[in-house]
Every structure is written in structure tokens, then in C-alpha cells.
């Protein structure tokens, strides 16, 4: 049992991030990819790394206005992420619907379906803004661990 506090101090150093595209136009996804994969922005300095499986994730980045068609799939993937997880809504679409607001095929804002913790508005937000959002998410995540 003594190992658990040690494990917590080690594990809270590097949250893995996972992104869900809930019907995004790919603008925010490109910015999210840029944030992590290009040495200029390099989010790995904060210990973050994209992972391929939702079961390894700690921080979820959701982009897109949550279209009706993708909603069930997005919920299934979201529920596979183990607790404690932190949800970051990237772009104005998941936060309020942006220009797609009040459309018949869009379920935005997503905080009706997902427990959102941090919002990063922008269309798309610049990579530094996403880094700022992830930094806020890491703080929340450390509190929850």
C-alpha cells in the first residue's frame, strides 16, 4: 500500500492527452496536432503526449460542435477514458456552437453531454492558447489525483 503515494507523485508528472473529433471542420484538429507534434510549440515540455487509445488517456481534447451522427460514438469513446479525466473543449464550436449554433444536425454546446472542465475559445485557437488550456487542465488534473 505504501507504493500508492509514490505512484501518484510519479504519475502526475505526465498526463497523456487524447483528442476526440466530434464533427469538427479539422481546423482545431490541425492546431491540436501542431501543438503536440511541431518542435516550435512542443507540448511534451509539459509532459503531455498524444496516445492512440482512449484507455491510456488522462486529458481529453474535444473539438467540433458534436453532430447528431457522431454523438453516440463520441460518448462511447469518452466513457472508455478512465477517471480521473479532465475534459478540454477546444474551439468555439463545442463551447457554444459557434457559427453552427441552432443548426438541426448539431448538439452543441457539448457541456449538456460531457462534463467539460476547461474551455479554449478561438476559431481555431492558436497553438499557444491550446497550451494555456492544457496547462490549466493539468492543474485541475493534479488536484483530482
Amino acid at each position: 500500500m505504501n507504493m500508492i503515494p509514490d505512484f501518484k507523485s510519479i504519475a502526475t508528472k505526465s498526463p497523456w492527452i487524447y483528442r476526440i473529433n466530434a464533427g469538427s471542420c479539422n481546423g482545431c484538429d490541425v492546431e491540436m496536432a501542431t501543438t503536440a507534434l511541431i518542435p516550435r510549440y512542443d507540448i511534451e515540455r509539459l509532459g503531455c503526449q498524444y496516445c492512440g487509445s482512449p484507455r491510456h488517456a488522462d486529458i481529453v481534447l474535444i473539438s467540433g460542435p458534436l453532430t447528431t451522427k457522431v454523438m453516440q460514438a463520441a460518448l462511447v469513446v469518452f466513457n472508455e477514458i478512465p477517471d480521473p479525466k479532465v475534459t478540454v473543449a477546444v474551439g468555439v464550436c463545442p463551447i457554444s456552437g459557434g457559427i453552427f449554433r441552432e443548426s438541426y444536425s448539431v448538439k452543441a454546446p457539448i457541456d449538456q453531454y460531457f462534463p467539460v472542465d476547461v474551455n479554449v475559445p478561438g476559431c481555431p485557437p492558436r497553438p499557444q492558447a491550446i497550451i494555456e488550456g492544457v496547462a490549466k487542465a493539468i492543474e485541475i488534473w493534479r488536484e483530482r489525483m
Partner: protein
Amino acid sequence: MNFLQLFAHNLTQGPFTDPFPFQPAPTAKRFRGKIEFDPETCEGCRKCEKVCPAGAIRFTKTDKGLEFDCWHDSCVFCGNCEFHCPTNAIHQTQDWHLAHVQQDKYSMVAHGVIPSHECPSCGKPALFTAAPANKVKGFSEAEIAEFRALCPKCRGKYLRDRKSR
């Protein structure tokens, strides 16, 4: 660039990585960021509300006057409002620090009030909006201040009187 060149560059210039979360990030001069509203120079034409593609801008009439609200969580930073504003009352700043926690979601608003008052000429309630630039060409500052305080009807009368003078 071969390895040695890259190595020499990194030794002299430092790494390419932006030091952002630990130091301020470079921002372009014409960066389209957070909206800022100045009720002093607003004409109250509501053009920005009409051209906003995301419906982020809203004007409401209250007892205080005409209230302006722009929700940053819906704004797509297209710059339409700034482009169409006849008096440059609304403009975009370079500020992009908009990431916030969920509790602050509905307080991310640029707010401004154009106060209402009584028209000094007819006594009816009027908005204290800025004078349209094309109508007050050649006016002295005292005349502009006088014109500004009037209600729309009295403004027309004022212009006609001034022409006939």
C-alpha cells in the same frame, strides 16, 4: 540543412521552440483577437449585430440604455464587425488569452452601455449615441456636442435649421 549546420544553428541561436508557457509568446501586430467595444464612439446602428456570422453580438434595450454584449465563447474572430463599423467603436485587440475554466464560461463577455437620457430640445428619451461622421462634417466641437445630445427627430431638425442658416 545538414546535421552540422543544424547543430551549429542550435548552438548559436538556441532551440526553435517557443518558450510560451514560461515566457510571453510573440504575437503578430495585426492579430485578430478579443473584441473590444467603446460605447463613447458607438453610433448605435447595430450593423455589427447584423453582420456577425456567429451571433455573438447582441444589443438589448433596457432602462439604462442600449446595452452591447459580445460573448467571446461564440465569437469566431472574423473581423466583420470591425470592418463594417462606421465609427471604429468596435475593434479587435491582440489579446488571445481566452482559455478559462468552465465556471467562467458565461462571464467571458465584452460589455458596454450607451446611456439613455432626455433630449434637451423635446424632452423625450433618447440614446446618447455618437454623431454620424458623414453628417457632422465641418461642425465645430461645440456643435457636435450639442448635436449629440439630441434625439433622432431633433437631430434632423437641427441639420435642416443649420442648412437654412
